[in-house]
């Protein structure tokens, strides 16, 4: 190991550590060339391919590596949260209608295809411009870009670095939610922990919010799969030993490293365009289903974060600023107050960090801190973290009606696949309260608000 590993956890959660191979994966990452300070894992850590999910590692841009396994298959899987000007009472008896309308208007489910057919030329624009493409084509407003991480568009995205297969898969699926743990949730602001930050974020107790969790669909998977295969093929040419083939990587400064970064950036942009479109249709659906004007609804994008990404960012290391390639795989950026990457309205309180819980639980809104900036390369946890395999979850929920259980908890759930509901039962995940408590107490982000789910659509 070139650097030590650091796992954020608590007495309460520590019992689960070691129940899978993820601590070994934290150690494996620590072997990679150019790694700086620590191989980190967030409290929602669980087993992943190569890097653990919940893993954070920063690499020197000249001597360090970049690894598709450090980003994940679903490149720029992420979350956005919208605040609204309405309360649960304003929805009244229309909650079921609203969730049904969302379910009908937002394409979801395995292999779902979108409402629009893109030309190859148009797809390349999506890949280069990301959410900006979506706004320019009538999906949302320019203000949405201000509150999206990186403005919803990574620089250096080059569509020429994508295979025809990746491009083909991307064309059919833009504007779809997907399946598995992806969702769209209607939530209520349930508890405020930090008044000042909540005010800056536009969060008010009792108000409705909407969370969207989705990624880069088949395109991102194909990019990861293509580059992983290319890198695995060349493993024997590396001048250092690799403890796991799935950890295949290349030097960031090499041609292949640059190509992967450019391809990954395309997939990241695709995901931002995708979430921007899903949000646009959500706004339209709220207006129609509730018969309210945009003025009444005030559906404003609080923020959009990605939690599967590698990015070039600057951090202080041993007293001087260095450009590093930060891998966040199942981890969220958490920039501190005053950081120039933040929009002016959030600069006094820090970056909004959006943490989805398990199905039907709700979400946490946190804020980035100085401690995260100096300790974890501006990173924190990303969600609840799976503890039970999908097939085990299906087994334990076989005789239950998950839809009814959710309804008893006051959550209207609709899903394309019955199996998805069973795979996503709450007990399959670590408690999100515990995960958030750890990062709050460690000071790498602070609790701002908790949102409770009342409606949920799943693929």
């Amino acid at each position, binding site marked *: 190991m070139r650097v030590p590993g650091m796992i954020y956890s608590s007495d309460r959660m520590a019992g689960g550590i070691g129940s899978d191979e993820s601590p070994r994966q934290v150690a494996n990452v620590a072997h990679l060339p150019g790694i700086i300070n620590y191989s980190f894992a967030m409290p929602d850590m669980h087993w992943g391919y190569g890097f653990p999910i919940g893993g954070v590692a920063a690499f020197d841009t000249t001597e360090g590596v970049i690894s598709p396994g450090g980003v994940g298959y679903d490149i720029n899987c992420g979350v956005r949260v919208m605040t609204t000007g309405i309360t649960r009472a304003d929805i009244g008896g229309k909650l079921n209608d609203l969730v049904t309308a969302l379910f009908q208007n937002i394409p979801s489910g395995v292999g779902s295809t979108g409402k629009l057919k893109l030309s190859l030329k148009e797809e390349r624009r999506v890949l280069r411009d990301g959410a900006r493409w979506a706004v320019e084509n009538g999906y949302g407003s320019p203000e949405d870009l201000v509150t999206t991480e990186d403005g919803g568009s990574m620089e250096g995205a080059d569509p020429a670095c994508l295979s025809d*297969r990746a491009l083909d898969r991307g064309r059919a699926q833009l504007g779809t939610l997907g399946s598995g743990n992806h969702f769209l949730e209607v939530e209520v602001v349930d508890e405020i922990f930090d008044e000042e930050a909540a005010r800056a974020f536009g969060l008010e107790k009792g108000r409705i919010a909407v969370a969207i969790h989705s990624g880069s669909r088949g395109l991102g998977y194909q990019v990861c799969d293509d580059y992983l295969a290319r890198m695995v093929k060349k493993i024997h040419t590396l001048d250092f030993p690799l403890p796991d083939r799935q950890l295949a990587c290349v030097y960031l400064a090499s041609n292949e490293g640059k190509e992967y970064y450019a391809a990954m950036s395309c997939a990241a942009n695709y995901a931002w365009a995708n979430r921007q479109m899903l949000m646009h249709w959500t706004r339209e659906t709220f207006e129609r289903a509730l018969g309210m004007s945009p003025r009444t609804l005030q559906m404003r994008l609080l923020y959009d974060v990605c939690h599967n990404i590698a990015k070039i960012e600057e951090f202080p290391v041993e007293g001087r600023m260095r450009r590093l390639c930060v891998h966040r795989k199942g981890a969220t950026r958490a920039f501190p107050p005053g950081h120039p990457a933040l929009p002016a309205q959030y600069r006094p309180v820090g970056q909004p960090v959006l943490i989805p819980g398990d199905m039907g639980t709700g979400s946490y809104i946190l804020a980035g801190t100085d401690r995260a900036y100096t300790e974890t390369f501006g990173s924190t946890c990303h969600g609840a973290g*799976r503890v039970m395999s999908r097939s085990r979850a299906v087994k334990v929920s076989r005789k239950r009606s998950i839809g009814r259980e959710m309804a008893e908890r006051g959550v209207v759930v609709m899903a394309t696949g019955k199996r998805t509901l069973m795979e996503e039962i709450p007990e399959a995940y670590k408690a999100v309260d515990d995960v958030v408590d750890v990062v709050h107490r460690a000071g790498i982000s602070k609790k701002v608000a908790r949102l409770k789910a009342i409606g949920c659509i799943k693929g």
Partner: protein
Amino acid sequence: MDKRYTTFDHTADLGIEIYGRDERELFANAAFALFDIMTDVTAVYLKVERDISIEGTGWEDLLVNFLREVLYLFNGEGLSLSSFLVTSLDRTHIRGTVRGEFFDPDRHCLHREIKAVTYHRTEIVKGVHGLTARVICDV
């Protein structure tokens, strides 16, 4: 050997254990396993045929690359496959013909999704009754 494959748990993912009397049967059964897990292979007519030719750096690598290819035919092109014929095979190259038809949501059902075949801990072991392979899939 009756059983072509079984599945095992792997935290967030799906493990598949595949059996075969020899490499040819093992590879064909592995492709069958993917489609049997995802779809109802008995409802698929053999209307479309594709020849494939895939390379690898050894048996394990070749198996993953072969499975990545047939999975792409489903996830990327919408081809539901049910017949897998291996015509030539050595430790670095496989040629074969796969058959099936385009997935039709009105006639075909989708049991569950497999999103990727990974290189993680792929192994092929020789036993008394033949070969056993293990692969981990992202679902």
